[in-house]
């Protein structure tokens, strides 16, 4: 028998045997193992929930990036319409960076989905084995005679502990991957929050929006000024008179307020 396949199975077997040898009465091992199996099942379910949470967070971020990307596209269009090619170029450059980020997230999302599927089937396999073990355990305890039960307990125990080793590894891999994803997701959140991508969801305005708004408000001011000039017509004396009346009143009021403070 050759190497790789055999060596891995021997390691699994020796771990199971060590656990079995440690117990004085094999029946105790059955109960103890069953407790461990339940714990592992809980762990698998928690792991699955963690992976699902990470996946949902990624989906939200992908959505945000997508919305932001569409918004930048609109802004580029708007800027170009206003004759501001520089602003349009800036918007498109940012959009391209966002799309790159979005593609990365899509890859991570696919990985997480695959991990979720693997854990789901692992959890189903373990569940079936644990159930079979429970039945076998009760039978063995009821009909226990030291000589023959020893072997049977050993068989049941090894069968389930191999599965536990397998699932335990799967969980650890999933946890590692989830941790990596969460760290990366945190970085994307920070990027959005820092204003580099600008969080449009919270209503914050980015610099391109501000500039576009400034442009349109500038032209509104000009239009309003032109309209007012038309209405006022000749007669520049009137505003000056109002100023002349108001100024002395303000000067009188100033000392009073200083005395109050003192």
């Amino acid at each position, binding site marked *: *028998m*050759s*190497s*790789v*396949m*055999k*060596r*891995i*199975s021997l*390691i*699994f*077997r*020796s*771990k*199971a045997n060590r*656990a079995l040898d440690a117990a004085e009465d094999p029946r105790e091992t059955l109960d103890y193992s069953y407790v461990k199996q339940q714990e592992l099942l809980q762990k698998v379910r928690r792991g699955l929930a963690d992976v699902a949470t990470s996946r949902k967070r990624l989906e939200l971020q992908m959505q945000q990036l997508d919305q932001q990307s569409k918004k930048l596209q609109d802004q580029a269009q708007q800027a170009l319409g206003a004759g501001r090619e520089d602003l349009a170029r800036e918007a498109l450059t940012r959009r391209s960076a966002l799309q790159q980020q979005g593609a990365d997230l899509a890859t991570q999302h696919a990985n997480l989905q695959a991990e979720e599927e*693997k854990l789901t089937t*692992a959890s*189903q*396999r373990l569940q*079936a*084995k644990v*159930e*079979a*073990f429970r039945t*076998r355990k009760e039978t063995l305890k009821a009909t226990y005679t030291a000589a023959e039960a020893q072997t049977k307990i050993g*068989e*049941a125990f*090894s*069968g*389930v*502990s*191999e599965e*536990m*080793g*397998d699932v*335990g*590894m*799967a969980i*650890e891999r999933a946890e590692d991957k989830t941790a990596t994803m969460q760290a990366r997701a945190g970085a994307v959140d920070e990027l959005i929050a820092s204003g580099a991508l600008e969080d449009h969801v919270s209503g914050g305005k980015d610099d391109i929006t501000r500039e576009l708004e400034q442009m349109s408000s500038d032209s509104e001011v000009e239009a309003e000024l032109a309209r007012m000039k038309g209405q006022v017509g000749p007669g520049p004396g009137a505003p000056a008179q109002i100023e002349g009346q108001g100024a002395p009143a303000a000067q009188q009021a100033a000392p009073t307020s200083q005395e109050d403070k003192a």
Partner: protein
Amino acid sequence: MIIRILAEGQFEVADSEIDKLNELDAQLETAIDGGDEPTFAAALGALLDRVRDAGSPVALDALVESDLVLPYESASLVEVRDLLSDDGLIPG
């Protein structure tokens, strides 16, 4: 004989398959020693495919120990090296 592919489950494989599997297993070991990731991935893939093709899945609720255990499909070279060390990846 019963062969487990980690993260996938157990397969019942006819004993007559052992020569072919040993051959693929030897190639896998050479690939591990060689340290080239693509060669290793190809060798592992070939061995796993053979087990899946030649074997039939063992019932989920069967409590049987495997005669042979194989790494999971996506395992990297480093992960398999860890698997092969006693205090490596396998918990417990």
